[in-house]
């Protein structure tokens, strides 16, 4: 009897080991020199959900995040899908060269990891990770992240009050306080409406005029723009 109950206990433990929730220690580092990241959203979800998908039109929820840094739409979409989420670990903006560390516990069925955060100053640029398979093996994993363009707003590169609202072209803010004014606008159109790799901001060196309100010596970047480290425990 004793042996039998011991065996069933072992069986139970073995069965639960493969389906147990995982604890993830996550660190996101802003690798850029002049960009700020808006509230970061990290989520573990099933293959039925995705936060964004390359070469696919952005959802309204993704658009709100990419144009104005508003993650509430994505959060409610994910919560309806029983995803696990970590919201805004840096309590606001993540400044250039800064890191933020946080935890996410994912349910056994939520095996894919995604992350988004808007790039400031940009019209609809964001840093993203799309549906990365969370390893079951204990270890430290590092992923370099690229800058994407949501394809929802023309990259006019003008700082406009209220520019973060979907449908209002413009960059809501340059948190570094280093942008210009009175630009004439880089472009009025967005011909590629699918999520794609961001072509980078243009900027110029005339902070009182020119085409762009961005500074071409400060606000440019090359990929990768962020580093994500995940410790599976």
């Amino acid at each position, binding site marked *: 009897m004793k042996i039998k109950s011991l065996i069933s206990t072992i069986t139970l433990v073995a069965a639960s080991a493969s389906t147990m929730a995982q604890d993830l220690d996550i660190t996101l580092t802003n690798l850029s020199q002049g960009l700020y990241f808006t509230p970061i959203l990290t989520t573990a979800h099933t293959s039925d959900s995705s936060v964004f998908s*390359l070469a696919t039109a952005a959802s309204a929820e993704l658009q709100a995040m990419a144009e104005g840094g508003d993650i509430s739409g994505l959060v409610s979409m994910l919560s309806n899908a029983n995803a696990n989420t970590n919201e805004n670990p840096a309590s606001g903006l993540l400044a250039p060269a800064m890191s933020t560390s946080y935890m996410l516990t994912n349910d056994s069925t939520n095996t894919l990891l995604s992350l988004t955060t808007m790039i400031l100053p940009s019209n609809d640029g964001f840093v993203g990770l799309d549906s990365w398979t969370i390893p079951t093996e204990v270890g430290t994993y590092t992923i370099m992240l690229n800058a994407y363009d949501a394809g929802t707003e023309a990259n006019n590169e003008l700082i406009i009050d209220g520019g973060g609202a979907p449908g209002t072209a413009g960059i809501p803010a340059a948190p570094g306080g280093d942008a210009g004014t009175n630009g004439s606008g*880089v472009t009025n159109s967005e011909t*590629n409406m699918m999520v794609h790799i961001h072509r980078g901001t243009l900027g110029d060196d005339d902070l009182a005029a020119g085409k762009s309100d961005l500074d071409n010596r400060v606000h440019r970047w090359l990929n990768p723009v962020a580093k994500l480290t995940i410790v599976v425990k």
Partner: protein
Amino acid sequence: MSISLFINLKNSSNKLATIAVSVLMMTLLSACNDNNTSIPVVMPEPEPEPTEYSYQVTVTNLTYAQPLSPVTVVLHADEKMWMIGTSASIALEKLAEAGDNTDFIAQDSIITSMSDDGVLMPGLSSMITVSTTDTSATHLSVITMLVNTNDAFSGLTGLELSNFDLDQTNSWNLNVYDAGTEANSEMAGTIPGPADGGVGFDEMRDDVNVVTLHPGVVSQDDGLTNSVLTQTHRFDNPAIKLTITRIK
């Protein structure tokens, strides 16, 4: 495939054999519940049919405004079709300057090739299936030109196929190379894509003459006065996403 020969035991006339068969039949009947009882005799295997290997190659254009020349997939032996720091072949030069893969797929080392009919526009994907029974086709290369440039291309070369299990899928984000065969003047008449409609291939080599990663385009909006390109044509890495699945 093995071939089996069946002998019907019901035609046996020998009495002993009949009894033995009856016993055997009963055993077999109870075992397999099948009335057409027969004993399989395994014959020697014939020459094996050549095994076909098949790969599904998907390329997604991740750029904002760089159409890609017809995506080209080739199978070959262990070889690199280009290498950083090495001079481009004329076949590669023609593909990188004009998007023309005619010479590229005609190279002696290419065992099988498949390519798209037309350009692949930004935000779109293309799927090509390449198959072979040739056991010397051990490596795969994929290549395409960013047509609104002087000589930029993206791709992957010399991918070893023996690492692929059936139904296995691998993905890559691929960077942009500069063939190094044409100066990045961005001037009218030098770019074959819709930004210009200029000539593609020019046999003169007025650049560094080695393959490197691409420095990106400058454009007229960024102060390159004679450029026909605008800020829309700028790009960053990666330019394409490549996914390969072995389906046979």
